[in-house]
């Protein structure tokens, strides 16, 4: 299993080897070209996207001390430090016979790692790890190894299978989606899931731009590029080649394995019963513009799409993602329409449930209704004024501890409830004034100043008399 392979990429960042006459050569991981996938939370190594877009990892080679005689060779494959193995059938020569004086940055391209013995290397489907050997060979007929270090780079260019058994059910303003995976014996193949959805009125994502030629690896367009950084001829460096490689690595359509389309939907996205026209289709590549969830965890098998419009059909599906960030094609499409239903609270109340909800115990009991204007004023005062004051939260909590028995007593004594209502009116009015003052501070200040001016004028008039 790929995840269990050694994370050689990080090992390469700390490689040091003693070298003749006290000299040292170090190979440090410098950077990787930015991937469209956020690399946080994924395995280190090359994935499909990086391979198809020819996005290398760059290493820095540096040395200290005086160099001895020898030339740099970089091989990819097993046991390339042994001379008899260093032929084209067992080791891919990425760099040969480079003078040590030219040492600088060095890029490892994904197809070297994925298919080192290919002619040329490709992005063929597969997963595993490839050894990278940095050798300094003596400049003699024996080409003896005077320095060596080795790193291992993982790769996974095999997309996961899309989720299966995708089901959806409607609710009020929501659709609940469930799914399963095809081979639960290998759960590591599914590290994340994305729920896709689309309905009329939702934005349609822009089509992905064609991959641009990778100018950074072309010395002709990058005068700063190091000679060692020049990819060999068999590395595709224009868009057409990239597309050809991508096409070559894509599996041929297999009707038996293509995701099925559920009843009531259409694989080409055209309108079918219960499905909106447009959107995406089963078997399409992942498009983040249609993603209606964040990246969901490995154990996720359901997701609720919320905030949808009632009586409007939506298409939904699920995409799987492996530990390297490879995404499956879009799974089977199911269509569902959110519509009005009675939730538990409505069922409870319709069947005679007595609880009116809320926490405003005394006022609710006194006015008999949680949404009474006076109760709303007191509630707003609690949330917007009292809670914002130092110690206000403590007062609120103390009230909640003490008030339920009083509220219960009020409910059982109608006369007392009338008295409480009368007593609470001034409090509710003051609460409303305080809330409005907090909501409109400038208007309150102006009003206060106007009242103060009137008061001052009245006082002066009284003094003159």
């Amino acid at each position, binding site marked *: 299993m790929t995840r269990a392979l050694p994370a050689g990429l990080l090992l390469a960042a700390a490689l040091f080897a003693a070298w003749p006459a006290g000299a040292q050569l170090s190979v440090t991981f410098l950077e990787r070209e930015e991937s469209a996938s956020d690399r946080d939370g994924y395995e280190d190594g090359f994935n499909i996207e990086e391979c198809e877009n020819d996005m290398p990892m760059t290493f820095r080679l540096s040395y200290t001390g005086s160099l001895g005689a020898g030339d740099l060779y970089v091989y990819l494959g097993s046991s390339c430090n042994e001379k008899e193995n260093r032929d084209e059938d067992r080791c891919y020569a990425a760099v040969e016979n480079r003078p040590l004086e030219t040492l600088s940055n060095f890029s490892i391209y994904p197809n070297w790692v994925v298919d080192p013995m290919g002619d040329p290397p490709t992005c063929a489907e597969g997963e595993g790890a490839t050894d990278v050997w940095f050798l300094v060979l003596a400049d003699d007929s024996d080409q003896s190894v005077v320095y060596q270090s080795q790193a291992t780079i993982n790769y996974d260019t095999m997309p996961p299978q899309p989720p299966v058994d995708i*089901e*959806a*059910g*409607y*609710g*009020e*303003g*929501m659709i*609940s989606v*469930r799914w399963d995976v095809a081979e639960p014996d290998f759960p590591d193949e599914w590290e994340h899931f994305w729920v896709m959805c689309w309905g009329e009125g939702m934005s349609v994502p822009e089509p992905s731009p064609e991959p641009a030629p990778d100018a950074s690896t072309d010395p002709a367009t990058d005068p700063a590029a190091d000679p060692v950084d020049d990819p060999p001829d068999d590395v595709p460096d224009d868009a057409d080649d990239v597309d050809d490689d991508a096409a070559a690595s894509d599996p041929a359509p297999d009707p038996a394995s293509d995701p099925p389309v559920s009843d009531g939907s259409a694989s080409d996205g055209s309108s079918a019963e219960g499905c909106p026209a447009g959107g995406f289709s089963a078997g399409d590549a992942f498009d983040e513009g249609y993603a209606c969830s964040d990246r969901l965890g490995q154990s996720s098998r359901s997701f*609720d799409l*919320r*905030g*949808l419009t009632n009586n409007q059909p939506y298409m939904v599906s699920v995409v799987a993602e492996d530990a390297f960030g490879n995404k499956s094609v879009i799974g089977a499409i199911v269509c569902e329409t*959110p519509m*009005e*239903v*009675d*939730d*538990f*609270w*409505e*069922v*409870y*109340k*319709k*069947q*005679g*449930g*007595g*609880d*009116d*909800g*809320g*926490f405003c115990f005394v006022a609710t009991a006194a006015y008999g*209704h*949680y*949404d009474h204007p006076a109760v709303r004023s007191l509630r707003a005062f609690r949330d917007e004024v009292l809670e914002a004051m130092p110690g206000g939260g403590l007062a609120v909590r103390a009230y*909640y501890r003490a008030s*339920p028995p009083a509220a*219960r007593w009020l*409910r059982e004594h109608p006369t007392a409830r009338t008295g409480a209502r009368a007593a609470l009116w001034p409090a509710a009015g003051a609460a409303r004034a305080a809330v409005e003052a907090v909501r409109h501070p400038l208007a309150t200040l102006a009003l206060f100043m106007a009242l103060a001016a009137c008061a001052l004028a009245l006082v002066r008039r009284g003094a003159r008399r």
Partner: protein
Amino acid sequence: MRSLAACIAAAVLLVGATALAQEGESPQRFAVELKFGPYYPDVDTEPGEPGVGTPYEDVFGEKQTFMFLAEFDWQFLRLPGISFGIGLLAGYFQDSGKGLDPDTGERAALPRFTKVPLVPFVKAGVSYYIWWVENGRGIGRYEGTTGYGGTWGWNFSAGLMLLLDFFEPSASRTFDQEVGVNNSYLYADFFLARIDNFGDRNKLNLSDMTWTVGLAIEF
């Protein structure tokens, strides 16, 4: 999908047998318990006339879901063989179900969705359950009422704790010397929660009689 969730807060009074202290053991004052058990609130015993409605079963079905609880106790009095304490219990419970068609009342078409190794104890306390009901648009509402609130009640539990120190005494001593944990237990209890605002029929009844199992440490 519709859901009901509840946060549980309770103060408990603990009376329990205690493991005998060993010589050289560090002082013991507190206990922490993490536990879980099935839960099915007695909402359907509360609305209207008894037997008229079963809103909880209608929406959430008959399945029990698990309630997770954490408890912190202060053992203020420890006598040979028995201890007394007070504590705080907090928990969380959530259930999901299917909404009903407002016209037909049918469910929406959602998918299928030798020391003493055994230590007895009893606890009793006051509880306050904060609950809320959600639908696809947020908190449920109906004719001016809002689907959240709180219900007071009381709880009682009794059970047995299996003293794990019994199986690895040396490891237990090391744990005590290095971390200060005196005893650790696996335990199970009978848990009775009467959460109906002390008999108020106009409050959501979240009562249940169930069991919990969990892990407890004393320190």
